[in-house]
């Protein structure tokens, strides 16, 4: 029998995967994906909890997260395309002009 905790653990694992992705990857696109995973990890959690409590707020939140995630992708991809156009790379280390 799969209980709430399983879902929560799953979401936690996904979240960690996202984090690891953000910290390990050097490619902006990968970073973008990792943040998506991050957000969706919580979606799982929200859905499960709202089922557990039997009220819809959690699912509502999940939907909003999905929506926001989508728009983030839109903006993010836009930025990255421009960056790629200018620099021909999506490597994080390519942008260090500002420091100190």
């Amino acid at each position: 029998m799969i209980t709430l905790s399983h879902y929560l653990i799953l979401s936690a694992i996904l979240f960690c995967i996202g984090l690891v992705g953000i910290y390990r990857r050097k490619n902006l696109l990968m970073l973008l994906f990792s943040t998506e995973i991050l957000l969706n990890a919580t979606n799982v959690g929200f859905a499960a909890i709202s089922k557990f409590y039997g009220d819809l707020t959690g699912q509502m939140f999940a939907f909003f997260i999905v929506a926001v995630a989508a728009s983030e992708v839109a903006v993010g991809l836009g930025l990255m395309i421009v960056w790629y156009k200018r620099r021909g790379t999506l490597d994080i280390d390519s942008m260090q002009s500002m420091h100190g």
Partner: protein
Amino acid sequence: MLEPISVSLESLNLGTLAPMLVAIGGGLGILIIDLIKRDLDKSLYVMLSVLVLFVDLGIVLGLQAGERGFFDIMLIDGVAILSQIVILAASMLFIPLALTSKRFHEFSYPEFFALFLFMVAGFQFMVATDNLILIFVGLETASLALYTLIALHNREKSFEAAVKYFIMGALAAGFYVMGAMILYALTGSVEIYKIEEVLIAGDYANLTILFVGFAFLIAALGFKLSMVPFHTWTPDVYEGASAALAGYMSIVPKIAGFVVAMRIFEFMIHSDVIWLRDVLYVVIVLTMTLPNIMALVQRDVKRMLAFSSVSHAGFAMAAIMIGTTAANSALFLYWTLFLFTNLGAFTMLWISRHKESRWHIRYDHPYEKFSGMIQIMPVGAVLMALFMLSLAGVPPFSVFWGKLYLMSEAVNNDYIILALIMAINSAISAYYYLKLIVYMFLKSPEENDGTIYMKNASRPLQTIIGLSVILTVFAVLGVEPMMDVITAYIKVSGF
């Protein structure tokens, strides 16, 4: 078999939504106008957005505190109204900065102004609700718009800044939703007041999870409020963005963030759970001190101002930790007064902005740029000096009074040490503000033509500078009435 949900229109109380709708509508309107007739002049859009904001402001002032609306998601309490007023006023002060005498890429797009209005709406949503969902939505709306605005400046550094800001923002969003989820899991609600009730009812059972949740929220808000160590984006973004936008960022997103932080943390601070207070204490001290020290070694005025505004955010955050009504009022006072001065300071940079990097390969406003300014452009030098002194907290200029109230609140609530730390930090900060004055007044000029500092100075910009000078110098006269209004609003919302 569920019976159909019937919602009466007045129960929705759409009036609470009106301000945001106006802003959004205005944005859409601008886009439509653009569709109808191409390349109209930016001045039109500027004035349109000012008008929209004006209407918006009117409606906000029309609201009275203590209402809920739209399925009780919207919460119009004193703080909401107050913060919206500040946000709108600040936006109205900053948007005319687009009317530069030089042409800048971003202002040729009407989207710029549409996005700007959307962003304002986002901030308004953030402050006008105590529902974690809506806060999230508002926050993201505002941020996404902001990323774009930064990028629109269309220089290599702007894109870099935008991307950095974006990625970190995404991570912050992740933190936020994680925190929200944990709280939801713990209390079965995403409305802060409900969460509060449940927690108090359960006498803060299983603290660890609660703390973990709050840890995520602090991280998320810390990013927005540029709390150390989540502040790293600030200097880069300020440097990348145009001076005007940087100035805007130093004020408005923060005030929104403060309100959210207030809503989320206040009840915990008033409870007997010391964890939050202590954590915030550490964060605040770090945020006041570290950027201060880093600002000492900056070579670019704008970047220096970025660090300084981080430090100022730390000052203001202290009020939230102290958490009394007076303290929260002090926060709003401080931020308004800070707004006056920062507006001036960034505008001064903005009018002296050049397309080509004239003094330094990387920086637009290196200190050297201003050396000997007193000789070649006395008025400008004096004004800039005024703003710097004000930021340094030299009386009787505006920021001093904010500092005075904050420190006095710290003292009144037995945070003497905090007050002393504030004092010492102001002393340290004096150095880098002074550095600019030293360059302007005590060094010999490199240029001989004063107009180079006025390249962008169109009439509206000069007006704005004049305005902010007056507000900065005669702030003391405004303190009393402002304080009355602020305290009144804060009281009714029970913070």
